[in-house]
Structures are given as C-alpha cells and as structure tokens.
C-alpha cells in the first residue's frame, strides 16, 4: 500500500513560458482546425491578445520539468505500473502565447478500490500567470494495479 502520509506533500514552484512555436506544434499535433490556435493574425482579429492555448495544453508543462514524475519516485511507484485514470481541468482565464506560468503542485489524495487491488493517486497543479492571476487547476489521477506483478 502506498504511504498515505504523503497526501498533501507539496512540490517546488515551476516556471513555464508559453512559447508560440510550441503552441503551434501542439495545435498541429492535436489537429486543431480553428486558426485561433495557430495563426496570430486571425487570433487577434477574433479578439484574442495572441494565439490561444488549446484546452489540454497544460499537459505539456509536466514534461518541461527535469523530473516530471518526482512524486511517483517519492511514492516508490515505477512508471511502467501506472495508467492515467482521470484528468480534470478547471479553467479560470485563457492562456495565450507569451504568458509566463507558475505552477504549484501537491499530492492531492491517495485512495484504493477493490480491497486495495487498485490504488489511485491524484496530483493537483495550480497555474498562475505573469499578472499573478490563477488561470487553471489540473487534477491528474493515476491508477496503480497491485495485482499485476512486474
């Protein structure tokens, strides 16, 4: 069983620049058809300050960290044993190219189902922009199967 005392453990703040090239690449890879996600002129004509970050773009911030899964290491979980069970986003403000985001994270919860055969870990990240405005919250829940030995 995972160490429940790690619930609430916080992680150092991370900084990310929302890079325009990165946004355009992400829009292409996710096959966005609306040009507000990849054409700055059209985005501006539509009333946006710059290219808009798509709904799931914040997922990329994880991989910009040196150790994207430090919290799994802390819990003693290897990446091969987990699956992404659930992803939740709460959006407060839009995110645009050029924004500077600050991410605060913590282990939100650890719980189990099916008599401990399945254990869940939720990881909560809050994002603020350069104006110190909370723009989004992400809750990423991973599931660990204890019945499968690897």
């Amino acid at each position, binding site marked *: 069983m995972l160490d429940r005392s790690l619930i609430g453990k916080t992680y150092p703040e991370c900084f990310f620049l929302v890079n325009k090239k990165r946004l355009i690449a992400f829009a*292409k890879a996710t096959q966005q058809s609306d040009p507000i996600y990849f054409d700055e002129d059209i985005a501006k004509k539509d009333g946006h300050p710059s290219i808009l970050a798509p*709904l799931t773009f914040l997922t990329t911030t994880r991989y910009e960290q040196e150790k994207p899964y430090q919290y799994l290491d802390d819990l003693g979980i290897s990446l*091969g044993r987990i699956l*992404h069970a659930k992803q939740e986003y709460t*959006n407060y403000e839009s995110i645009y190219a050029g924004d500077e985001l600050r991410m605060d994270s913590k282990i939100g919860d650890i719980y189990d189902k099916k008599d401990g055969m399945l254990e869940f870990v939720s990881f909560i990240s809050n994002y603020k922009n350069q104006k110190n405005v909370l723009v989004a919250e992400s809750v990423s829940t991973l599931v660990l199967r204890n019945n499968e030995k690897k």
Partner: protein
Amino acid sequence: MKKNEINNFRIGDEIPNFHIKPISRSMLTLYATASGDHNPIHIDSDYAKKSGLPDVIAHGMLIMSFLGQTITNIFPQGSIKKFDSKFLAMTNINDCLTCKGKIINIELKDSLKRFSLKLLVIDSSGKKKLSGSAIVELKLNEKNK
C-alpha cells in the same frame, strides 16, 4: 453560426459528433514531440510488445484533446469552465474513434447560462474509450465569438 446553434440547444440535445482520423503511428510520434510525452509505449512497437501489448497505444491525453474539440467546435473556449475525462480503455493503431457530447442540463444563474455536458469517445464497434464531462458558462447577451 455558433451563436444560433447554442441558443437553440435544449436539455437532451446532442452536439455534433467529432470524427477522428484513424489513429496512426505518425499521429502518435507527432503528439509525443509536441507534448513532450515520450513514453516509449506510444512510439516504440518493440517496447510496447515487451510490455505485453500487441503494439503501441495512443496517448490518452491526445484522445482527450480531440474530445475537447468536440466542445470548442460549438462553444467558445473561454466559456469552458470545467473539462474532465476518465480513460476507460486503451486506443490502438487504426482505431476509428468518434467523440460525442450531450447537453444534460441548462440552468440560468445570475447573468449566466450554464450548460452541463456529458461526453464520450467510442470506437467503431461502440466500445467506450473515454467518458467525460464539461461545464460551459455563457454570459447572457454576450457575443459568442
């Protein structure tokens, strides 16, 4: 176009389906590069087979991004306050997926019109891959750009 559609929505209505092109290796490679998620289970067949899978599987977050477009095809992104999804089954190469959305509630609150959506991604045999939900809040009288 969007505005008229939105104003006509009633509880129980479905929003238009969004059909995803068949999942291909190049889609997954492109997404790995763009997202930074280089987990080999999505891009390396040998690794996937060693892990007990028939082949590479799609990134769940890629499928979630397609599901997101089902909503943004209709509603302005800035009005989408909550968006979540549960990953129910793995998506394989050549899977043909369809994203669906249904309006399960509409409420007027202060000067807001709040839509609750139930979302689903299924493959061509009807198997559920993702289920999700979204909350959309539009200001009344807002120009729905």
